[in-house]
Every structure is written in C-alpha cells, then in structure tokens.
C-alpha cells in the first residue's frame, strides 16, 4: 500500500448493514474509482454509535473523520466535496465526539477500529499482549490476577470470574473445558454480537488465557443462530488463529494446547442459562440442571468447566496486559472495572456505552441516549433484559452497579437498557413478560412452566377489570411462588418485570395512584 492510499472505514457490523452499510461501501469504492485515487475501503466493526450508522470514517493526518448517517445516494456528493481528504459535511474527529469522550473503552478498545478479519490489525493494536503476559505466569498466578481485578460475570449473574476459575483450576480431571456463553437472547442486549463481529480475536485470546489458567484443552463458543454474521466472523477468526499458531498445540511457542469450536444454538432463549447451554452443547434438549453440582466441578460432559459470558472472557486480555489493579481502579464498591451498557428501544441515540460502573441510569438514558426517539417523555426503562425490572424516570439517579440495583429491587444483568416513552401500556408489558416465559420455559420445573401461563391469565383478568383487588393479590402470590420455587432465573426472575411494573406503574393495572404502595409488596432482589 502506497503512502498516498486513502483508507476509508465502513462497518460490516450486522446493525450497520441493517441500515445500508454494504451499499454505502460499494458506492464509496465506485466513487473513489472515478477520482483516480488509490482508496482502500476497510470493513470494521461498529463504534457503537448506532444512530449514526452507516458511519463512514476517513483516515486523515489528524485522525479519523466521521460521516454519518450516510445514505448510499449521499456518497457521490460527499466524495466530490472532499470526503477522501476529510472535507466538509462530516462530524469531525470520531474520537472527539462527546459520545466517545464519555467512555472508557477497555473491552471494546478495538471494536470499530480494526478490521475484524485481520490478525495483523489485531496484533498491531495490542492484540495478544494479555495472552503473552499470561503465558509467562503460572496458572494460579493468572487466576489470582483475575480475582484481583474484581471482574464479575457480565452475563448477568455477576459472580466473580476469578473465583470460578479458581474452582476449575483446583478440580482434578482427565479433561477440562472452557465454554463461552454467546447465547445473547435478552432483548436490549447486543454487545456480545458486536464484540464478536468487531473484534473476534479478543474473545479467542480471552478463552485461551482461561484455558491456560484452569488447565483446559478444549473450548466451545455457544453462539445463537439469530446471529449469522457473528457465526461467520468468529468461525473465520478461529481458522485464522489456528493457522497463526494462536490455537492448537504449543500456542505462541508455549506448552499450552487449546482448541476452540463454534456451536450454533437453535432458537431457544433458555440456552442462555448456563446449565441448559451445557445440555444443548451435549446434544440434548436445553433443559435446566439442578445445582449443585456446579458447572465448575461437573460441567460439560460432567467435567470441570469454565462457563463465562462473551464480555467477561473478552475483558480478560486487557486485565492480563495491564494488570488486575489497573482494571480494579475503575468502578465503585464491589462493581469494579467497566461495563458495556447497551441503549436500545425507543431511544434517540442508541448503542454501546462502555464506562466505569457508577454512571447513573439517567446519564445513560438522557445525556448519552438523548431520551426517547419519539421525542416524547421517557416513562419507563427496562434494565437487564426480559427478566429485569422496569424502572420509572423518577429512579434515574440510580447508579449503575450491581449492589445499588439489587437494593432497588432491580438488576444490572447484561447491561441492556430498553427505553419506552409515555405511550407504553405497562400492564401489556407485564403480560408480555409472562407470555415470553411461557413460550421459552424449558418445562422442567412447575413454577415456571405452569406459573407463566397462570400469570398471563391473571393479568388478562386484571386488564379486563375482573375482581382487580383479588387478582392483584393472586398475582403477587404467584410471583412469590415463582421467585422462590423455580429452578433457574427464567421462572425465578420473570416476577421482577411484572412486580416492578405493578409497583411503579400501578395506574396501568387500574390501581389508584395513592394505593400502589399498599397493594404490592417490595421487590424480589
């Protein structure tokens, strides 16, 4: 590539493609050809400013200048006006945009910047530094570094990652596994998908570090079938990693042997629950297992298994490269490091915000997100996916950390925030929570399998005005039973959105505003 070659970056992320990034990339290549200049169109991940997609970036001496959102028919005019030199019509330097400056990108450091298919690009931007550091250390020292980082499971449960690894390291077995849970089924969450599509080698690096730390030789990524682009990108990255000696025998010249495989899910939400995921990986129906035994001791095929979310594993490389203490310097209380929040639903500026724990819900939704896309007032947000609580705008001062949310009867979960404006009917959303549970329950335990169906019926009666007071009591009783009696979070947490909807938006259930507190009990956290 000559020095005069202009590099133009267009995302290949599925979200960017969903609003025309491929067409824009084609038009740029065609328009560039007519100028007679050497132009390389690099397909990257997305920066996560999804309202600006398709977002085109042009490399200039000062940095990358952004243009977006761009329609394919805008391209010729922008190129004529000097887009290839960072000319007018743009947003300025992408790194200087307020949305980017508010963030601390550690897990997502390379997403949107590198070509996800290029192993060279990955290494040129610091890739494998964490793995190289880990391979100089004893496995137990790697585990303790992760413990010291304070990293907690980003899939939703928030269990300390290092403690889990310590258990697997201490277990004796003929074979151990590392399994990545990429069954990102929660509505409002898309960070796993964007990480895999935008920087897949980081996930491979994180899983390889985990393998070294616990003594595993085989790994599986359980990736949902709803993400075909991610499946393709990760599969290609694994093949490249094998060819480079980053997977297989004697990884990077060390004694470590580890290989990795993609397994595609088949449209079952419950397989995001770790024991159902293991059942599914074994080729069975994705029904939940009773715990104990915990997967760390008896996981995949009964062997000690690390099961971590994509973001947990993808955060390990930065921890190993820069030290656990540097990571733990971010965050608050027992929620250390950064979290990748995802803003979705009825939001003006939706996308990825990676920032230290402790930012408030309101800062995310109002300051960064710009409120509802409809321009109407925000009435409710659901945090943590379909099993997370609905919160009113009155609680926007709540800091985003595991403990503060638990204390408020809510949960951070996987960091997804779905925004609703004032046209939302919260009794309809509570009904949807039950009907989703009824649809997706694995059927193993009765509170979930039957409770969800009874929940739909009870809410229908409340909505129809049939013995409201009596049915609200019944609803609360049902919620308590599901919370206490279900085998996993599906049945156990479905009451969370339901109860929070009743508690905060009682008027949608026909409860006079003043009596809301008296009619409903406190949260389930």
């Amino acid at each position: 590539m000559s020095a005069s070659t202009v590099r133009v970056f267009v995302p290949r992320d599925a979200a960017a493609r969903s609003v025309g990034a491929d067409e824009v990339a084609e038009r740029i290549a065609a328009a560039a050809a007519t100028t007679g200049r050497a132009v390389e169109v690099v397909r990257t991940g997305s920066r996560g400013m999804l309202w600006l997609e398709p977002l085109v970036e042009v490399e200039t001496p000062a940095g990358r200048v952004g243009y977006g959102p761009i329609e394919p028919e805008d391209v010729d005019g922008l190129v004529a006006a000097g887009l290839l030199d960072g000319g007018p019509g743009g947003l300025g330097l992408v790194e200087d945009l307020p949305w980017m400056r508010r963030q601390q990108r550690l897990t997502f450091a390379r997403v949107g910047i590198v070509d996800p298919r290029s192993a060279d690009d990955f290494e040129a931007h610091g890739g494998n530094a964490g793995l190289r550091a880990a391979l100089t250390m004893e496995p137990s020292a790697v585990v303790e570094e992760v413990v010291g980082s304070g990293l907690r499971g980003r899939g939703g449960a928030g269990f300390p990652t290092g403690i889990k690894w310590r258990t697997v390291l201490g277990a004796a077995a003929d074979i151990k596994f590392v399994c990545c849970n990429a069954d990102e089924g929660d509505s409002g969450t898309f960070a796993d998908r964007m990480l895999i599509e935008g920087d897949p080698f980081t996930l491979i690096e994180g899983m390889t570090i985990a393998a070294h730390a616990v003594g595993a030789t085989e790994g599986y990524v359980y990736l949902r079938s709803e993400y075909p682009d991610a499946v393709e990108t990760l599969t290609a990255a694994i093949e490249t990693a094998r060819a480079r000696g980053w997977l297989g025998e004697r990884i990077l010249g060390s004694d470590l042997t580890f290989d990795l495989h993609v397994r595609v899910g088949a449209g079952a939400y419950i397989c995001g629950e770790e024991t159902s995921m293991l059942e599914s990986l074994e080729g069975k129906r994705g029904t939940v297992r009773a715990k104990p035994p915990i997967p760390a001791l008896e996981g995949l095929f009964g062997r000690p298994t690390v099961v971590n979310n994509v973001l947990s594993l993808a955060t390990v490389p930065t921890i190993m490269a820069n030290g656990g203490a540097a990571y733990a310097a971010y965050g608050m209380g027992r929620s250390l490091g950064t979290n990748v929040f995802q803003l979705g639903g009825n939001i003006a500026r939706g996308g990825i915000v990676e920032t230290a724990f402790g930012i408030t819900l309101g800062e995310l939704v109002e300051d960064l997100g710009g409120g509802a896309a409809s321009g109407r007032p925000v009435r409710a947000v659901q945090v943590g996916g379909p099993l997370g609580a609905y919160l009113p705008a009155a609680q926007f001062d709540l800091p985003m950390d595991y403990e503060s949310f638990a204390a408020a009867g809510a949960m951070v979960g996987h960091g997804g925030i779905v925004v609703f404006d004032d046209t939302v009917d919260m009794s309809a959303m509570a009904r949807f929570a039950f009907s989703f549970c009824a649809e997706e329950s694995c059927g193993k335990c009765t509170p979930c399998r039957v409770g969800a169906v009874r929940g739909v019926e009870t809410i229908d009666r409340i909505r129809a005005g049939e013995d409201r007071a009596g049915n609200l009591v019944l609803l609360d009783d049902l919620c308590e039973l599901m919370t206490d009696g279900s085998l996993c979070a599906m049945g156990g947490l479905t009451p969370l959105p339901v109860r929070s909807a009743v508690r905060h938006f009682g008027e949608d259930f026909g409860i006079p505003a003043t009596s809301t507190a008296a009619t409903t009990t406190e949260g389930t956290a």
Partner: protein
Amino acid sequence: MTMDVTDLAAVRTDHVRHIATTLRDVRGPLLPILHAVQEDLGHVDPADVPVIADVLNLSVAEVHGVVTFYRDFRRAPAGRTTVRICQAEACRSVGAEALGEHAKHRTGVGFGETTSDGAITLDEVFCLGNCALAPAVQVDDRLHGRVSPARFDALLGEAR
C-alpha cells in the same frame, strides 16, 4: 426424467445418513447434525429422525425430543424466503406489534405459516440484537433495521 417417491426418499435417507456419519465423532454431535440436515435439505423430516438415531445409537424418542425442543428445526419445508419479525421488548417499544399485524395482513398468513404460493414463511423471533435500530426484521440471514410498514412492504416485494 421422473423419479418415483421411494427413490427420492432413499436419496434423502442416504444424504441424512452421510451427514450424521460425517459429524458423529464431534462432541455433542446432534445439534450440528440437525443444523446440517436442515441446511442441506430444508427441514428435518420426521423420517430423518430414525436414521440419525441409528447412527448416533440414540433412541428415536431422544432425537425427536431434541428436534421438537428447538424452535429453529422445521419439520416441514419453509417457503422460499423466511421473514422473521422481532417481537421482543426493544422492538415492541417502537411498534413491533403493529408491524407484526401489518405483516400478517400483507402476507395473509400468521406467524409460523407459509403463503400458499410457497414464497414466504412468516415468523416471529425474540431478539435479533438490533435493539438500537428497532424494529428489526430478518429476511433469510439478512438483518434489517428501522423497518417501517412501508419498508416492510418493499422488503416483501424484493423477496417475492
């Protein structure tokens, strides 16, 4: 050239057996086998189940149980194009329910059904990971964002 039904069934059985035999030795082979059968042959036919069970030394009931547990595995052929409309919370916040009704009205079929000309299978899906550009629709493997009813009609036109 014509081929009678038993020949076609035998060809299919051979194909399924070949897939199952090829993948038998990967760990937890059943889901990869079912995906491969559906990819190659369009659906997992009830007649495929005993063939797979035989290769894996599982009972027919076990394989049947897995096929029917997962929403992805179809037991009858789909239309030439599959259109799936997200009905999860983020998409509901910007009108996914109305879009779903519009889609049913336009195609004349319900979720999980195929148009009589075999062109379109319509279905619902719970989250495509495009929650910031909702409502989301997937046409075969291709994701679309901010799909208004008008845009849906355009996508449907391209699919037909």
